[in-house]
């Protein structure tokens, strides 16, 4: 793909190609987290939607963020992989560049506790504000207390 060639010359040192197991998918690893916003800006004319944001918790090293971009023209996929520090997961928000990213980022904040700098409205989305913990992290254990959690002070 020409886009990939262009990106590689633009972000030469920080972008590496990885082999992908999926058809139509191009997988790129971005080692410099600060460059994400610039990268997304540069591809947003070509790949117009953030199809999904896959977060994988890989303790103790990293949170792995996979930004899956797609376009309406054909079925091509472009995945940008970014690794975040597990103790301090912070990254720039891309919601202002691609509106479709806004709720995906809120969801990652809600379920994993990843902070997005510059997000217009970073609140929990699926769970209540007082929910204890970040449920999709690997260290979150589903106990009976969690299963029966109502958020109310009820005694049965």
């Amino acid at each position: 793909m020409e886009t990939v060639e262009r990106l590689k010359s633009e972000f030469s040192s920080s972008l590496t190609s990885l082999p992908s197991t999926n058809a139509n998918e191009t997988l790129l690893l971005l080692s410099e987290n600060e460059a994400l916003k610039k990268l997304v800006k540069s591809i947003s004319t070509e790949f117009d939607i953030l199809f999904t944001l896959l977060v994988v918790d890989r303790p103790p090293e990293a949170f792995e963020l996979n930004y899956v971009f797609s376009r309406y023209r054909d079925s091509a996929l472009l995945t940008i992989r970014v690794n975040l520090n597990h103790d301090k997961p912070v990254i720039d928000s891309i919601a202002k560049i691609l509106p479709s990213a806004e709720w995906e980022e809120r969801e990652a904040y809600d379920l994993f506790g990843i902070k997005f700098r510059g997000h217009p409205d970073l609140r929990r989305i699926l769970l209540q504000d007082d929910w204890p913990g970040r449920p999709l992290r690997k260290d979150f254990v589903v106990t009976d207390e969690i299963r029966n959690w109502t958020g109310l002070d009820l005694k049965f």
Partner: protein
Amino acid sequence: MKDSTQNKITINIGPVHPSTHGVLRFIVDISEDTIVKVDPEIGYVHRGVEKMAEMKNYNSFMPVADKLDYIAALNWEVLYADVIEKALNVSITPRTVYIRTIMCEIQRIMSHLLFLAHVGEDLGNTTLFMWGFRERELLMDVVEEVSGGRLAPMYMSIGGVYYDLTLSFGRRLLEVLDTIEHKVKNEYKAISYQNDAFRLRTVGVGVMSKEFGISHGLTGPNIRASGVKRDLRKDSPYLAYDKVDFEVITENDGDAYARFMVRINEILESIKILRQAIKEIPSGETKVKVPWFFKIPPKYTFVRHETPRGEAAMYLVTNGDLKPYRLKIRAPSFYAIQAIKDLLVGNKVADLVTILGSLDPVPGEIDR
């Protein structure tokens, strides 16, 4: 001119309200009767499906995938079975490919009929509500004959389907399709899209431009109503969609009426697909042997399908264990509800229900 920030009233719609199509809540700021700001609140039916996937073995998750979108359960079953089969490198038999195509299209018609019914109900057109359910019931019976289930059929298994089609299935389905085609082309026309009262409530309401839809990641009938010719069944064919002949339906206006018309016409296209598939279905096995417990080596598997609500996807991350390491679910309705907060601004509060209904959201898949 009045300042729009003055006389601002905040009203609450939902979470339990007949027109929110499930458990959804909107906090709406209005000035006079114009909407200024909308804050959709989701998560009322959040069951932690992605966490559940990490706690179950691959086969045990199927009943949960079934209940993600309770209106189009078979499409999600096929998607989940497909992602696991891709990860396992299992290829299903030609007959299973056709059975799954048939089931996906039956489910698409059922889902679109329910959509028509609900839009009718939202607009006070109770007849359309009754008729939508009446025709859907015929297909429900067909699905029940094969799978034993109605709303959540649990028909797909990893490696195939649980039961082969019954002998009378083809004949019965064709009869039902004839009935539905006749009703959609004649009766529905009179009461909905050729009806003045219906047109007044929907034409020019909630207009969504092509650019707006694209930037908000909308897919499926919602984006096709804005003039984007995009359908995964054509663009990256899966199952037997490259072997059947059908059109991708588009409309150019992008209003609630266009979204209604896209779905009406998609019912007719699905009927076309079903007639061809029934004729061409090969005989043979319907199952490939896959053990109940199995391990998948570490890899990333991504599969996306066109469900009645748009492009749904599953991204499976495995680590060689009996359970998935991570399963990310992309629900098309999630993006529709995200877009609605910008789409509703500037509209009248009376049109909220129409616009929401025309986007066809299902809280089951939004909240996961």
